[in-house]
């Protein structure tokens, strides 16, 4: 019984080097800045849109978040950028992380309170709320840490939920015949140019692509157990999948793609960092380069 309990504990909160969280912060928080500046830019113009078209999501109603106004959205923009910038440096990981998480929740829910709701940010939102729970973490901190493991695992759960539940939603909404329909043709007709227009006229190929993506979505929980090359192959598949949807439809799902990094042993970057650093820098920061503790856990442990 104790063995089962330990196995369950190791599954949802495995011992993972805290360095992985440190590296995730170095990717996730800068991505938030890019996301706000490049991808989710609607909230500021929404401040100019009459409130007749404002349809607040449940989360905004529950948290009593105000109707977007020109001043409010600009202040929020500043807070969000500043907190992401500080959190990306690894300083004030809890304070800056929580502010960034709450500000991003406000920003994104604003963006989706005018009718259209996107489904590409769930894993990113989860990541922003779990990363501050770990506290300070260095990129060379190889000490196995269950708090870091839980945070990483939550991001992995969220990524898998995005894929697996997307497959389920297709069954719920359209039945088992979804993959044999023309949904991709619909998307290519509306948004596609060049190659996309040619593909739209190939119904058999469209059906094959739909079956492959739908099957991969359904099987995505396997990613929680796969290791090594099979896992990397799955991650590569998703990378290519999202690249192709971007090239054909200009739909990128980047907020989800960055969270795929939670499956990658990013802590090894600390080794590469040490190896690649010039000799003079190694001498100067010799003490800093010393590992904090021997890790009993393989770096690919999740």
């Amino acid at each position, binding site marked *: 019984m104790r063995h089962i309990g330990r196995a369950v504990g190791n599954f949802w909160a495995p011992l993972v080097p805290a360095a992985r969280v440190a590296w995730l912060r170095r990717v996730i928080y800068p991505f938030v800045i890019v996301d706000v500046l490049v991808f989710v830019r609607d909230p500021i*113009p929404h401040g100019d849109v*009459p409130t007749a078209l404002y349809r607040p999501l449940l989360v905004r109603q529950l948290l009593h978040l105000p109707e977007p106004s020109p001043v409010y959205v600009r202040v929020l923009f500043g807070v969000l950028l500043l907190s992401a910038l500080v959190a990306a440096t690894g300083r004030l990981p809890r304070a800056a992380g929580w502010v960034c998480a709450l500000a991003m929740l406000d920003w994104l829910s604003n963006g989706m309170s005018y009718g*259209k709701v996107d489904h590409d940010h769930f894993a990113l939102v989860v990541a922003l709320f779990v990363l501050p729970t770990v506290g300070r973490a260095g990129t060379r901190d190889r000490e196995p840490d269950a708090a870091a493991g839980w945070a990483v695992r939550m991001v992995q759960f969220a990524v898998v939920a995005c894929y697996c539940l997307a497959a*389920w939603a297709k069954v719920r909404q359209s039945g088992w015949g979804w993959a044999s329909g023309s949904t991709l043709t619909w998307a290519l007709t509306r948004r596609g140019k060049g190659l996309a227009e040619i593909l739209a006229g190939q119904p058999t190929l469209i059906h094959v692509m739909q079956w492959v993506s739908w099957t991969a979505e359904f099987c995505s929980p396997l990613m929680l157990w796969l290791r090594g090359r099979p896992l990397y192959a799955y991650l590569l598949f998703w990378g290519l999948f999202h690249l192709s949807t971007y090239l054909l439809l200009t739909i990128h799902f980047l907020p989800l793609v960055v969270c795929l990094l939670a499956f990658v042993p990013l802590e090894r970057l600390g080794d590469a960092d040490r190896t690649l650093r010039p000799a003079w820098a190694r001498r100067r920061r010799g003490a800093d380069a010393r590992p904090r503790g021997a890790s009993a856990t393989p770096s690919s442990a999740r």
Partner: protein
Amino acid sequence: MRRLTGWSRVWRALVTVAVLGLVINGTARGDDQQWPFGPMSQFAFEVSNSGGTVRSVYVEALTVQGTMVRVPLDAQGIGLPRAEIEEQLGRFERDPSLLQAIAVAHARRHSDQPRYRVVYLRNEVTRLEHGKAVSHQVETPARWVVRDPANPQEIAR
């Protein structure tokens, strides 16, 4: 080796169950209002191979100078992307006066451009046969003559 103990283990277990429960519930029986726990329904709808239709919404406006223009549906344009207009299509059809908001947003964001006098909500319908587009048709589900087009204001509701 840093393990979780006591309360730090309990609250994480509770959060895990709550987050997974909410997101599964969202897809099982929820709707978009529950974001971020809403259904993962991107491209979940089915389009029939034969007899299916592809609808593309766009908005046109007749300006006070008498020219017909395509309303820019994006963040730089009127501040609303096409998808947001599409998702509120039913509201516009039931209450065309909501199109006043498009004239107001345009006037606020592009004060140097000619104002809109009439706003037309258009719907381009493409019909599929054997997975291929065979016909196109443009519908106008809603039309609104803007109140006070020189200086449009929100309609009190």
